[in-house]
Every structure is written in structure tokens, then in C-alpha cells.
């Protein structure tokens, strides 16, 4: 376990570091996991120990049309924003990584600003601006805003894969007779797809988890899951929130697993 050359003092400090790491990990994970059992309580208060178990809060969740509605909204908006951000972001990354692109650094920095500017500013600015064009209280407004928030992630991940991509492959495809679009489809796209997929996952999670812009520009018709949770936490923190949280934890674990799978597969392809 220890490097044999370590002194006793070092072994003690290394052990202490491991212990601290363990505690930090507990700090990172337990609060999230602690919410799960509470969703299975039969009582209506959120506290341990749980005496009676039941699925009643999940029933509330399913039967209450509000939650179904906001879930549907979240999915519609997140999927639409992900598709837009992924397509547009991928195209832009290809342009940005071309050697003919003028000032790629400046353009990239500009496209990444939605990630840097505090979301509260984006939210307020969108509220003022979108309201002039009737985009507040509309799905279109939400999708546009979330697309913009997702674009930086797609640009970052796709650019990263493109930088690792050997542009000679494109030339090789041309020399073998492939026209540009055919070469893109058969040679470039399959190889940058891990970057595109992880960019899409980031964009999806960004939209699915976004609440501040929703606070400002979504009407009740467009309330998303996080927006509804925000109200729930603020006004009436009951076990339904724990149930929703549990569902969302499962969703995020799935997305995480997907992301890990994609990067592991890309890694395996690179090194096999």
C-alpha cells in the first residue's frame, strides 16, 4: 500500500490524507443519498428515523397532473435544446478547427460566454429582451435560451475531439475518391461522435437542470421540473420533493453511466 521508501511521518500524513479523502467523499455523496429513503416514508414529514414505509409519495407524484406536466415540459425543452445545440455546436466546432477560420480564439471565446456569464444575468437579460418579441411564456423562448446555454459544452467537447483527429484522414478519404460530405459522414463523423455525444449529454443535463432562466421567462404553462421543485422547496417541502429528487438522481446516474460508457469506449478505441 505504501511506497517502502516513505518515512514514518510520511506514512502517517499519507494515511491522514486518505482519511480526509474518505470524509470528503462522504460529504459529497451521503446528503444526496440521504434523500432517497425519505421518499419511501409513509409520514408526511421529512425526518429520520422512518417508521412506516410506503410508496404513497410516488403515487402522489404520478397522480398529480402538475408533476406529469412539468416533467413533459422538461423533456420537450431539453430534447429540443439538445438537438439544436448539438447540431449547431458541432458545425461551428468544425468551422472553428479549420485552418481557414479567421480568429478562432476570439470566436470561441464569444461562443463560450453563455457558460461564463452568471445565469442570473442571462435570465434577467432574456426576460427583458424576449418579452419584446413575445418569447416569454413560450416554449420557443425556453428552447432558444437553453440551446444557447448548451452550445458552449458542445463546442468544448467536439473541439477537443477534433483537435485529436488526424486531418490526413480527410485527405486520405478525398484521395480515395470520397466527396466532402461523404467523407464527413463516413470518416470524420464516426470518429468525432464520442465528443458529439458527450457534448449532447452535457447540453441535455444543462437544460434539464436549468432553473434560473426558467424562473424569468417560463410561464406556468412551460414550468419545468426544476422550476416546480424550486417552488416546492421554497413553499412546501414535503416527501413528494424527495420522491422527485429520487427520480432525478436515477436519471442523473443513468446519464453519468452513459457518459462514462461513451468515454470508456472512445478510450478503448484509441488504445486497442
Amino acid at each position, binding site marked *: 500500500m505504501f511506497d517502502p521508501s516513505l518515512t514514518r511521518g510520511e506514512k502517517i500524513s499519507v494515511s491522514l490524507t486518505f482519511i480526509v479523502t474518505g470524509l470528503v467523499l462522504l460529504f459529497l455523496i451521503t446528503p444526496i443519498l440521504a434523500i432517497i429513503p425519505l421518499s419511501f416514508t409513509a409520514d408526511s414529514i421529512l425526518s429520520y428515523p422512518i417508521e412506516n414505509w410506503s410508496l404513497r409519495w410516488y403515487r402522489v407524484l404520478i397522480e398529480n397532473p402538475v408533476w406529469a406536466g412539468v416533467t413533459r415540459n422538461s423533456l420537450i425543452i431539453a430534447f429540443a435544446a439538445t438537438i439544436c445545440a448539438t447540431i449547431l455546436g458541432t458545425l461551428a466546432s468544425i468551422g472553428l478547427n479549420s485552418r481557414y477560420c479567421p480568429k478562432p480564439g476570439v470566436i470561441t471565446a464569444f461562443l463560450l460566454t453563455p457558460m461564463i456569464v452568471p445565469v442570473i444575468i442571462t435570465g434577467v437579460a432574456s426576460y427583458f429582451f424576449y418579452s419584446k418579441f413575445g418569447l416569454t411564456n413560450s416554449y420557443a423562448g425556453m428552447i432558444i435560451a437553453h440551446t444557447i446555454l448548451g452550445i458552449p459544452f458542445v463546442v468544448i467537447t467536439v473541439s477537443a475531439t477534433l483537435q485529436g483527429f488526424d486531418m490526413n484522414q480527410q485527405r486520405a478519404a478525398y*484521395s*480515395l475518391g470520397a466527396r466532402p460530405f461523404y467523407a464527413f459522414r463516413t470518416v470524420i463523423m464516426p470518429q468525432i461522435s464520442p465528443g458529439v455525444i458527450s457534448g449532447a449529454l452535457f447540453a441535455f443535463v444543462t437544460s434539464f437542470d436549468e432553473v434560473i432562466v426558467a424562473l424569468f421567462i417560463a410561464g406556468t404553462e412551460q414550468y419545468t421540473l426544476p422550476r416546480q421543485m424550486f417552488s416546492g422547496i421554497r413553499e412546501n417541502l414535503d416527501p413528494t420533493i424527495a420522491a422527485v429528487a429520487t427520480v432525478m438522481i436515477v436519471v442523473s446516474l443513468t446519464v453519468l453511466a452513459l457518459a462514462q460508457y461513451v468515454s470508456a469506449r472512445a478510450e478503448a478505441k484509441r488504445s486497442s
Partner: protein
Amino acid sequence: MTSDQNFLEFINIQKTYDGENLVIKELNLSIARGEFVTLLGPSGSGKSTALMLLAGFEPPTSGTIRLNGATLNSVAPYDRNIGMVFQNYALFPHMTVLENIAYPLRVRKVGKAEAAERAQKALDMVQLGQFGDRYPKQLSGGQQQRIAVARALVFDPALVLMDEPLGALDKKLREEMQVEIKHLHENLGLTVVFVTHDQDEALTMSDRIAVFNDGRIQQIDKPITLYEKPANQFVAEFIGETNMLEGTVAASDAQTTRIQLACGASVQATTVEPIATGARARLSVRPERMTINPSSDGGNLLPASLVETIYHGANAMMVFRLPSGETLTAQLRAGNPFLDMTPGTAANLTFNLMDARSFACA
């Protein structure tokens, strides 16, 4: 006016990337059908750029490239029907070996069965018939190289380009592949333009070699001519090893040039181009054409003393110092009794008029 002699032509080609510096200053070159021509030169000499122009990845800044009588300038790379083997092979990592080779056939909408058959045949040709289902990453460098060759040949291109294809291989494998590519060239009657910076490779494989330097062809000739009769100092030094000695021209006519060397000796060399009397000139003699302590005085005599002897197995290099301080190497076969000379020993070095060439100092 198409002829097999002018199958491929570069006519007054110039190329600049930045609008400031010409990477290719002037290129005129004709290649015959079925010929194996190597573009040889140091990096930055313009040889790879010439290949890029030919493949269509870069447009020439001015001039015309013609293949089989047709101008190539405005033809897109994918319409040129030119096979290319890339330096790093550029095999598609997400496709199997067979898919890689079938790719140009797929592009050309060749039927599935026929494409598979032709790809397999190409794979057999490079002796990797059983590796069709592997991915490129699972193969060794030499195997990948052969796949790249098979892929560039499978669609019967009019011309095959090879951009330092053997650069990444170790010495032994490289030599094997040189022979193999040469055989493919002969057996299939391919026209090949091969780029390398390795002169041994160029000498081994080529019908003709174009030596590039500073954006121009310095000399284009058969390997033997290039070695024996270099047209200028650059070629003499770039191809093989040579001794260069400086001096002043005493007399120069169409056949011989007499040079008064810095070391004091006066020697005669074959004239490459007549040089004005009194001008600075250089004398070039290959180390293996040097003789030590001759029985008869051939006229070109250089007194020197031995500095050291370096063994290379089959032969050895003896380094001598001339009175002027210049050093001179002589290459001797192993077993030659002169190799036992101790450093410091004085010796007379001679060479034949035919083996010495004179170049004007730039």
C-alpha cells in the same frame, strides 16, 4: 500530344502559402508512364509540397499540372483518381482492414460482392490475406503500411503517390518494404511518385530521382548518374558521402579543371562547368575513390597524416589531416593492410581524375 513519355507533367509550377515566400520557386518535370520517380530532398525543400499539389490538397499558385494530357489544376482531389499512401498511413481507425481497403470501391459504387473480392485480392497481394477483420490499431506498423499501399492501389489509380511511407518503420522492415514496393511497381506497371528524405531509399527504388533543394529541382537523373556525376555541390554532398576541398582555379577547359588547393597541392578534376581562372572552386571526391600510398604517381597527390581509423564492419573510414588543417576521409575494404596504420603516420592520398569533380564556389 499525349505520350507515354509525358504522362505526368509539372509545367512552370510555383507555390506560396503566405504570399511572401515561394515554397516551390520553379518546377518543371515530366514523368513517363510506368516510371518510378522519387522526389528527394531535405525537409522544406518543396518535395512534399509538390506531392500536395499533385494530389490536389493544395492549388498551385501558378503553372499547370497535366496528367495523361488533361490539366489537373481545377480537378478536385476526389476526382483525380490518384492513389496516395500517407506518411502516417491515415488508415481509418473505426473501420476494419477490409473496410478500409474497400472504401474507395464503396465510394465508386462498386457492387458489394465485387468490392469484397477486389479488396481481398488487394489484401492478398500485400500478403495480409488473413487480417481482413482486424482493426488497423491491432496491426504492427509494417502491416499498417501494407494496408495503406493496398488501399491506394485497389481502385487501379492512374498514378500512385507515396509521401515518406516508410519513415516510421525500423531499418530492417524499411528495407524489406522497399523491395516489396519496387516489386509491386514492376509487376503492376504502376506509375509512382515517391517522396523521401532518405537517399538510400531513393537510390534503391527509383528509376529516376529528382533532387530538391530550396524550392527547385537541382538535378533529375538515374540513381547511378546522380551518384557518379552530380551536377552541383548540393547534389554531390546530399547523395552519398564526399570530400570537399577548397582551392583556386588554375586552368579550366571543357574536360578538366586544374585547381590549386589550400593545402598546397595542385590537382586535376573533371569539369562540370568551366570556371574562370583565379576563381574559388571546390573539389569533390568520394571517400571510396581515395587510394593510399600508390605505387605509381597518378598526378593527383595529397600528402597527409592519419588522425584516426573508424571501423564499420565490412569497411572502414580513415580520417586524414592535410597540411591546411582540412580533413579528408578514405574508405577502405576490411582486410586492407593500410588499416593497421597508427595515427600520426604520414601517407600520400591519390585519386583518379575521373572520380574528382570541380564546382564553382557559390
